């Protein structure tokens, strides 16, 4: 097949348009550089009424919002899912790694939980705490100025609490807690578990005249049509374009490899146009990968040449290694005092109004790293599944379960809003033996070799999960609640969800000062190829008990500043 070369040449090609790619686009286009954003999925604008699902009712869909088409329900704004037809991935041995992809402009930022937590000083130096994993080559002070800038540019609500490892920032005001959250606060405090306002990138107050203010529909996962939540397209890429930036969007363009010249310098990328299935080439002075940790690793590993037989930038052999996800496990509570609730609109923002940051010292515990607790519940909009097992909670009230007739109407109304729950999200230890690699036996429908995964949890994570469930039950009892289902046992890994399930996969192109033990330097630049950068979560040395997005954004900005300087110095 002949490669169709574009006549246009760019300063920078950015592969992927999620958090990292969006931020690089904004910073580099604002600096006057000519940018090509190459996105594997279709164009998407949350404001477009044709694709909008925000404010739709369940009865506007024939399946009432069921998750048969989209994994998080059909109104969720992620085009993709755990399995994508034509774009498979494989497992090694008994591995059960779940890989969530959202293939569209903005990627997973269109549907994510908007939980926007900075890493703290200790999070960059995990090895100093317990000797496990590695330290980052940079510390909180290196990233702090960028976290500050991200707070102000994108907007995040929260509160300054003067907590050592959950740093203060430039926050918008927090929404008041909902009723079940007040119950949680009461229960958690009794157990000495801290609770503070949550930190979500949702505009509870205006930050500029381009974006709207939250009108409290709780549907951030549907992507906000007035741009009151952070999605990469609406908050970074479109503003970069409107600001006069030279940004060309290539959509439905699946990058297969980074191309190089005879000196081993990157010249651009090759991609398959999903519409005509032909291969195209684009050239640029700098290539930035932001396709998500695993997809960027895949592109690099598939970029094989005589000079780089193991893949581009892979002289350390570490691309794909140290893959790790946050730990996670959940529990639902039935709170009898929340039965027969008075009805009022308590949608609030899309997600939790309060949360518990890690509150203990691991030196006194039998697992090395912490976790935070997220809270959910309330009188939410009914969807497919509302009314299932309509009176199963009767067993806690000494009443019969089952039956038929209009008593069921009363049961559903009685229990509405009385079930809430908590989720623990924690830090795992990055392991060299947990990895993704190219599976030479399988290609996707675009002819590109796919990934296969090898991943196993260790007792560090299992014991942490056990601690989560012990804590959950204690808090639940303090609230006068009843934990639902059985407490997961040792044989069930204490309820620890499959790796990948929390969708915080990081670490596949890890950062370090030594080219033998890392893939990129502290500016996310490949040690082996100076004009290739990775600005997704691949460079994370460790994924703290925080969510990765705010750190992806801060580092992508820092890297973009570095690229601008290096281009000025003609070093790239």
């Amino acid at each position, binding site marked *: 097949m002949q490669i169709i070369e574009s006549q246009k040449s760019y300063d920078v090609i950015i592969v992927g348009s999620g958090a990292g790619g969006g931020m690089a686009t904004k910073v580099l286009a604002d600096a006057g550089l000519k940018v090509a954003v190459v996105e594997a999925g279709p164009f998407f604008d949350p404001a477009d009424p044709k*694709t909008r*699902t925000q404010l739709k*009712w*369940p*009865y*506007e*869909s*024939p*399946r*009432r919002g069921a998750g048969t088409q989209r994994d998080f329900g*059909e109104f969720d704004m992620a085009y993709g899912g755990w399995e994508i037809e034509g774009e498979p991935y494989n497992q090694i041995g008994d591995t059960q790694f779940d890989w969530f992809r959202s293939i569209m402009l903005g990627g997973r930022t269109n549907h994510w939980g908007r939980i926007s937590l900075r890493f703290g000083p200790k999070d960059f130096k995990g090895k100093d705490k317990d000797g496990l994993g590695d330290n980052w080559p940079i510390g909180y002070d290196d990233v702090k100025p960028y976290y*500050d800038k991200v707070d102000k540019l994108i*907007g995040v609500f929260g509160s300054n609490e003067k907590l050592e490892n959950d740093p203060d*920032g*430039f*926050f918008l*005001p*927090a929404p*008041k*807690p909902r*009723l079940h959250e*007040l*119950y949680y606060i009461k229960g958690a405090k009794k157990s000495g578990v801290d609770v503070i*306002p949550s930190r979500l990138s949702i505009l*509870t*107050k*205006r930050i*500029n005249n381009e974006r709207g203010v939250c*009108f*409290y*529909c709780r*549907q951030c996962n549907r992507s906000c049509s007035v741009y009151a939540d952070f999605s990469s397209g609406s908050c970074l890429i479109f503003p970069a374009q409107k600001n006069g930036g030279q940004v060309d969007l290539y959509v439905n363009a699946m990058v297969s490899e980074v191309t190089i010249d005879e000196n081993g310098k990157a010249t651009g990328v090759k991609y398959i146009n999903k519409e005509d299935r032909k291969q195209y080439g684009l050239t640029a002075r700098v290539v930035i990968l932001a396709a998500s940790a695993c997809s960027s690793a895949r592109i690099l590993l598939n970029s094989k040449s005589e000079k780089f037989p193991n893949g581009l930038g892979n002289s350390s052999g570490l691309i794909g290694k140290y893959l790790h996800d946050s730990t996670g496990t959940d529990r639902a509570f039935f709170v009898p005092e929340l039965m027969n609730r*008075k*009805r*009022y*609109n*308590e*949608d*609030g*923002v899309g997600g939790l109004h309060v949360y518990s940051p890690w509150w203990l010292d691991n030196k006194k515990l039998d697992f090395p790293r912490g976790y935070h607790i997220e809270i959910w519940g309330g*009188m*939410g*909009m*009914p969807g*497919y599944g*509302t*009314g*299932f097992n*309509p009176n199963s909670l009767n*067993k806690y009230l000494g009443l*019969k*379960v*089952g039956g*038929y*007739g*209009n008593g*069921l109407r009363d049961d*559903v*109304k009685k229990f*509405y809003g009385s079930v809430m729950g908590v989720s623990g999200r924690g830090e795992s230890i990055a392991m060299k033996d947990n990895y993704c690699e190219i599976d030479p036996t399988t290609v996707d429908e675009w002819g590109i070799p796919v990934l296969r995964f090898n991943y196993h949890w260790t007792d560090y994570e299992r014991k942490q999960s056990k601690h989560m469930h012990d804590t959950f039950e204690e808090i639940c009892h303090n609230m006068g609640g009843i934990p639902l289902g059985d407490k997961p046992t040792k044989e069930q890994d204490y309820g620890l969800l499959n790796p990948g399930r929390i969708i915080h996969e990081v670490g596949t192109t890890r950062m370090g000062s030594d080219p033998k033990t890392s893939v990129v330097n502290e500016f996310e630049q490949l040690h082996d190829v100076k004009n290739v950068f990775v600005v997704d979560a691949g460079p994370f040395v460790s994924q703290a008990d925080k969510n990765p997005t705010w750190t992806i954004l801060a580092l992508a900005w820092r890297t973009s500043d570095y690229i601008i300087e290096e281009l000025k110095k003609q070093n790239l």
Partner: protein
Amino acid sequence: MDRRESFKTMLLGSLGASLALQGCVDTTPPEVVEEALWKYTYGRTPKEQEFDEKLLCEEFFEEDELQQIETLANLILPPTEAGSIADANVVPFIEFMAKDVPEFQTKIKGGLVWLDIYCNAKYKLTFRSCTEAQQKEVLDLIAWPDPEAKEHPHEVQFFSLMRNLVLTGYFTSEVGIKELGYKGNEPNNWDGVPQDVLDAHGLSYDPEWLAKCVDPNTRGEIAQWDEEGNLIS
């Protein structure tokens, strides 16, 4: 051009002629297609829309099966002033879900036949031709799963599935949501739990916490901070 032809031209012209839709218009009465396809207007990808069009055009249940589902649904949730199975479009919803979730298909079809077999043996009648008292006698056998049991007989599982689909179909409909009393899904201004609710639950907001919260009066003003990160607007 007859009505059917003109409708087809109009439909294919306006929506773009997907293969599924062409097949659909050729095999299904146009008014059925018209109603099914133009009712649903939320954002879907072209692939998702094509899939839904295909399902909406397929007929999975026979007419008498649909009537049997309707009878059963009305026993599970008899009509009240608040709303009925018909108001909530529960039967079309169940029909769609049976096409959308293939695991449901044999369970539902098999369960419907089992109901008739059972009624025939006991009353020499089909389920639908039984009296309501007889129908309820049958339901009493299958509507009360043993909470301690590790596994349930197929007829109990069938009824539990139908009850789930009927209840969720009802409470996700316009009338069902109104009856449930859900108040959101519209632009509003969240300003905390109403005072009478706080009082009823013996709870109150901590003033220190409230100081960190949104002031509804100034949320339209552009945020500004001092160097320490304190909001000053």
